[in-house]
């Protein structure tokens, strides 16, 4: 079966945590449900939540914290 992915809703800078000292929203191996926040995208100095649309287990992230992302880009792979 094909893997599901979590995509960037907007272009900008991707963050895996709410601030530099916080824990990541999710890490590899965590289970997520639809609507769970997995990261933030900063666009024009405003922050937008990245939410999972599916249920599953986060297998791996395809981008690093603070990477530049395009709208619609795959950010993480969901398994299970």
């Amino acid at each position, binding site marked *: 079966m094909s893997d599901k992915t979590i995509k960037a809703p907007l*272009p*900008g*800078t991707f963050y895996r945590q709410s601030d530099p000292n916080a824990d990541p929203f999710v890490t590899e191996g965590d289970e997520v449900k639809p609507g769970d926040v997995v990261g933030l995208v*900063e*666009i*024009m*100095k405003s922050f937008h939540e990245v939410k999972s649309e599916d249920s599953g287990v986060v297998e791996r992230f395809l981008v690093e914290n*603070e990477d*530049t992302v395009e709208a619609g880009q795959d950010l993480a792979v969901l398994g299970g």
Partner: protein
Amino acid sequence: MRRVLIANRGEVAVRVIRACRELEIESVAVYSQADESALHVRQADHSINIGKAAARFSYLNPAVLIEAAQRSGADAVHPGYGFLSENAEFARRCHDAELIWVGPPAEAIELMGDKAAARKVAAQADVPIVPGTEGAVAPEQAFAAAERIGYPVMLKAAAGGGGKGIRVARDGDELKDCVTVAAREARAAFGDSALYLEKLLVTPRHVEIQVLADTHGNVIHLYERECSLQRRRQKLLEESPSPALDPGTRESMAAAAVRLAGAAGYTNAGTVEFLLDGTGAFHFIEMNTRIQVEHPVTEMVTGVDLVKEQLRIAAGERLAFGQEGISLHGAAIEFRITAEDPDADFHPSPGQITGLEIPGGPGVRLDTALYAGYTVPPFYDSLIAKLIVWGRDRQEAIARGRRALEEFAIDGIDTTIPFHLQILEHPGFRRGEYHTEYLTDLALG
């Protein structure tokens, strides 16, 4: 001063390049990976790549900027506005690297950036301040302080900065509820429950005074800018003169700004911000120790090129004119055009400019870094253009503003041009009767 590095991007970088060129000073642009094809890079005499798109690696990175200045042979740094422009540490590091800082001394940036210290200097210089506590008070002292200041009051953590966690109490009962929560939050966030209280001015106007000070002790003002038209504390348009000031208040506000700049040991261009309350009394809130976004409004009504004056002052020259050489002529309005969709809660709208029609004709000025085919990157501020119009009076400026906004076409992204056209039709704006909550009250914010 032969070569200036501009530690900024976008329209303000282009603005500084223009001033340099007229003074026959060479310009050095810096650019992140996202800005390789930006207009400021095309227009500068030299340009240097300063790294990754995210600002903290590039435009907010003092070490990289100073290295770029040294490598390019620049002898001065102009910080523009935003980014590191009010960072005293960066100013100091430029100075230590024997680069001329086009701005005030680091000590003045620090002094005005410290709210309690700035209020103290203002009070000593006989500049009216918003009634508040002198520094921090313990939660149990808040009630006596509020009685003295008068309700409604604003309270916030004394240790915190910015607008975060501000609470409002309209009477003693509300204060009782607020104090406990605010003190707990303050302790959780900063390890200190001390609070700061200030009188909340209801529906004030935001009026600011432009000052220029040289390094020979001369301080002058260039009158006011009215900046009350705001959305969520962000200025949308500015005008000069302010429709709210009578001649007496204008003169006393301007004189207060000059006294403050003198007392702060200020040099270069700066702005003293005031709140004007319903009774016509004004209160100092803060000083911006840099050139401001809305500076063209002042340039249009005084004829003074503020950015060229900044460069001259930084080079050690005396002001070429005294106070008597400055007069207000006509009326000017600046419209801030941002890449946001006013029909979708001002959602950011970066992307490629597929078509561009620029307004022109009498009394129209456009400060922008846009060109047809340019792609507005998602990484930085959404301000993409400033349209400034001048008229012999406010009515002519408004008519011109509408005409120029209608001529202005930016295709490919959403912008706030339609929103500005809407504002110009509002009777309150037309009458010049508006305050900082005007758009919120109209449910337009």
